């Protein structure tokens, strides 16, 4: 049982944790914009310009929220998730996809359990901050 009436579970559900965030996007403008917005909200942010860089940062020990663009050259977001799983690097991260596409990619089938959320660009800064705050609650340890 996770909880029952009368039991205080507040200690297991932190609302103000500032998890680290990695933004993965081949568009430098997006990287800087997201980093600026999240830094201002108090989140430490690392930037990766490709799926390869994302994997490199995970191997270097990154844990936290990964905001992962779908449409990237060479290794797209879905292939990046497959690489994360193949390398066993998915244990301490939460992945949310970023996409400018109007309709989701069928390549997501089979990867649903690894994709916590799906954010369509463009997005409002406040909306992004609120989402990352929620994601952080799922990484509280």
């Amino acid at each position, binding site marked *: 049982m996770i909880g029952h009436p009368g039991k205080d579970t507040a200690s297991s*559900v932190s609302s103000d944790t500032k998890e680290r965030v990695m933004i993965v996007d081949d568009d430098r403008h997006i990287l800087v914009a997201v980093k600026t917005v999240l830094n201002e909200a108090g989140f430490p942010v690392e930037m990766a310009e490709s799926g390869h860089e994302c994997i490199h940062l995970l191997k270097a020990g990154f844990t936290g929220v990964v905001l992962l663009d779908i449409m990237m050259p060479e290794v797209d977001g879905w292939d990046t998730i497959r690489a994360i799983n193949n390398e066993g690097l998915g244990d301490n991260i939460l992945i949310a996809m970023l996409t400018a596409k109007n309709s989701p990619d069928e390549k997501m089938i089979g990867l649903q359990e690894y994709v916590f959320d799906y954010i369509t660009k463009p997005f409002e800064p406040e909306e992004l901050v609120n989402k990352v705050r929620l994601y952080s609650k799922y990484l509280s340890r």
Partner: protein
Amino acid sequence: MKAGDLCPIIVIGSSTGGPQILEEIFSGVVRVPAAIIVVQHLSPSFVPLLGAHIHQRCGAPVVIPSEGDSIHTGTVYLAPGGRHLLLRNNRVFRFSDAEKLHGVRPSIDITMGSIHPGTGNLLMGILLTGMGEDGATGIDHIRKLGGVTIVQDPVTCAIRSMPLAAIATGSVEYILPPGAIASMINKFGQDGTQSSQLSTETPAREKK
């Protein structure tokens, strides 16, 4: 078990973008009038925290069931991830390690499809945001058993294909935003009715 003791059953299926919607729904749930079984496509490591958040939102006990556990009214059950979750005799949980269905395990269709006719349980099936078609067959199954069927309004979904696939079956009665879904849960079974007698919300068949 006497007929009058039958536990009402609500199955909620959810995928990408679902945890925050589940939190929103359970924020509005003031009574848990059934055994609520939540099947969320999610890495197993996140499931306990999702359960903690649901408990924090609605105050009801939240349980990650084990093989052989019985369902009880007033409790929220959360599929543990990695295994299909089924009901035996509409009363007892069992698990299956069968192949993924629609690319996922647990599959919403398998949980909803494990409910069988003849026991008289009040039923409700709810399908939320997500990619693909999981849950559509399950919603159709629950409707054919006389249960109430609801999907999240696709406009409010991070990904709308799961609700759209369910709507395409013709078996969805209500298309509702998260807050209205909470209201439907609160009203479930209160007057002994089910299906379209349950709510004054606009039925899907009237929404164009």
